[in-house]
């Protein structure tokens, strides 16, 4: 019986030997030497991208879930936790390919995002100079929200553009003082989320100081999940709530 199974595939053969012999010894056979005990269940993988069609420069949220995996990677992104959410900004149409490897084999999932080029006559955001925008409108146009990953207070690389623009505006308008609010999504505990919001606001404050804004012009306040921007239990909404928001500190 074992012989018959060996004839089918080496992999299944080892399973059979291991289960029948109680796996007393490791099977000596070159490349399969490293194969772990093969009684483990096969990994499963799910990957979704939201939305699946965007304009270049727009953000896409990837969320994934795996089971029975020891290592999870998305091509081009790298190693990831067994489940999670990540925001990406694809420049061209992209197929995100997730591989979950575990003791029981490999699971795969793919999510396709179609990216259309931004309109040629892209409107350069009006910096307000010389226009009839109010100071408030100019501020809002130039100092824009910074978004964060799940349970993270690290300023993402895709926020550098917004930060540079804010710093440039604040360099020109050097009397404006800024209140930085730290916000969290609805998940997790109120008290702890207030410290997370504090860390987010503080991360942005430090980034602006690094970009040349005087510390005395920056004040932080954490709103945790007490003042959500939107209230639906969806990743889109959660992402909008995981942010540092700005207002003129009068």
């Amino acid at each position, binding site marked *: 019986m074992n012989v018959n199974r060996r004839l089918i595939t080496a992999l299944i053969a080892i399973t059979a030997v291991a289960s029948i012999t109680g796996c007393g010894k490791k099977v000596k056979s070159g490349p399969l030497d490293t194969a772990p005990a093969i009684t483990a269940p096969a990994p499963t993988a799910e990957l979704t991208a939201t939305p699946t069609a965007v304009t270049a420069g727009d953000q896409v949220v990837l*969320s*994934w*879930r795996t089971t029975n995996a020891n290592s999870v990677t998305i091509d081009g992104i790298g190693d990831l*936790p*067994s*489940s*999670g*959410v990540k925001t990406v900004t694809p420049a061209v149409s992209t197929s995100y390919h997730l591989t979950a490897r575990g003791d029981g084999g490999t699971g795969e999932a793919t999510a396709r995002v179609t990216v259309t080029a931004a309109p040629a006559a892209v409107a350069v955001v009006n910096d307000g100079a010389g226009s009839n925008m109010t100071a408030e409108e100019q501020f809002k146009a130039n100092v824009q929200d910074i978004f964060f990953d*799940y*349970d993270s*207070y690290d300023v993402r690389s895709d926020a550098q553009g917004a930060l540079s623009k804010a710093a440039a505006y604040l360099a020109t308008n050097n009397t404006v003082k800024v209140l930085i609010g730290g916000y969290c999504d*609805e998940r*997790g*505990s*109120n*008290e*702890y989320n*207030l*410290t*997370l*919001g*504090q*860390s987010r606001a*503080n991360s942005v404050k430090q980034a602006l100081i690094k970009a040349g804004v005087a510390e005395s012009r920056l*004040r*932080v*306040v*954490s*709103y945790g999940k*007490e*003042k959500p921007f939107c209230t639906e*239990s969806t*990743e889109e909404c959660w992402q909008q709530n995981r942010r540092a928001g700005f207002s003129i500190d009068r």
Partner: protein
Amino acid sequence: MTRSLHSLPRRTLIALLLSAALAPMAHAQDWIKTGSNLSNQRIRLGAAEFRPLGQDPALQGFKLTFDATLFNDLTNAGIFDMISRSLSPSGTPGSPQEINLGQWAAEPANASMVAFGSLAAVSGKLTIAGWVYDAKNPGSPQVLGKQYSDNATDDNARQLAHRFADDIIARLGGGINGIAETKIYFVSSRTGTKEIWAMDYDGQNEHQVTKLGSVSLSPRISPDNSRLAFSSIGRDGWAIRMYSLDLNRLVAFPAGIAGGANLSPAWSGDGTKLAFSSARSGESEIWVCDANGGNLRKLTAFRNNSSPTWNPRTNNQIAWVSGRTGEPQIYIMDSDGGGIQRMTDGGYAVSPSWSPNGQFLAFSWNRKYGPGAPGGQDIYVFEIASMKWLQLTHDSGSNDFPSWSPDGRHLVFERSIGGHSEIWTMLADGTEQHQLTHNGRNFMPNWSWK
């Protein structure tokens, strides 16, 4: 995983706690005692309807309130096997001369003890005479005899029932005071903004404490019931604020104001110190100060620290939440900031509350936390000496902010179902869960110390 952190095996725990409770085990029971004050054998107790004395037209209303409150308090106590009304002998014995102990001792009531008495309303005063008799010892039956009096109002009918219940519990419950006269402070958004509210331990008598019109969170009553510390957001961010329940107004607490989020205050068990989270140094750290705000110092040196709770037995340790390694975990340190020990080994662990006897931490834990991950936020109790834990809530919403009752037999907590939060209570073994609030959304309960 190298830590010796385990789910508590039921048999081990039963044995452990039974030995602590000194209660001989008559037969195995399939339920777990975590609060060591919950004995395994419940006293079978009857409560007769009280006899109304006098002509006051309001008396019948007071009687109904008193009887219902007393029966509820004794049921909630967690140490009695209450005899239902339908199995109780009829009649309203108003005095020792009128009680028929033989009837109570016989089937179907089969009472070990009976509470009975009278209530009288005379010239605006409500007077209760209450007794507890041992039904199986007719030769010398009196266990308790008490008289109480207050102005004749429906609220006082409830309060006098609470006092009689607490005296019965203290007498029959191993000398541990009852909780029928305790209060629960909590946050409610029913007026449109999150304010601090208070209610009796059974959910009655809800009333608003703060009217600040901003967001007020994390109420913590002082051990002597005189002051309420909480955090509130204002023009300059989050401050620890202090409300005097003697003066019924806010009183100054300058130590809680300095810039940066000041959050989650916690009183030491002797009322002489406060610990809280403050970001005045940039990141959120645990700070402690004297009750008057003096002697302020920082205990931690990483970021994302919140929700301290003192060991109320010794006042020389603090448990708190730290996100220093990623997701928040429960830690314990000495009250000088040394001797840091991590208690949870993963997931998302928040909101510790230290039990009155110093042995346990109740906290909220999502052991499989992660986006899209299965599992819920549930209340757990952790035995510190053994590093073993027990899950108290299962498959019922998202549960957070447990707070111990002063007798160590109960926990009050916040349960959110479909985003709708209410205050719930349960015995410290997870049984007898019931909802206390029903108006608006209610959060972050804190049980008074006495």
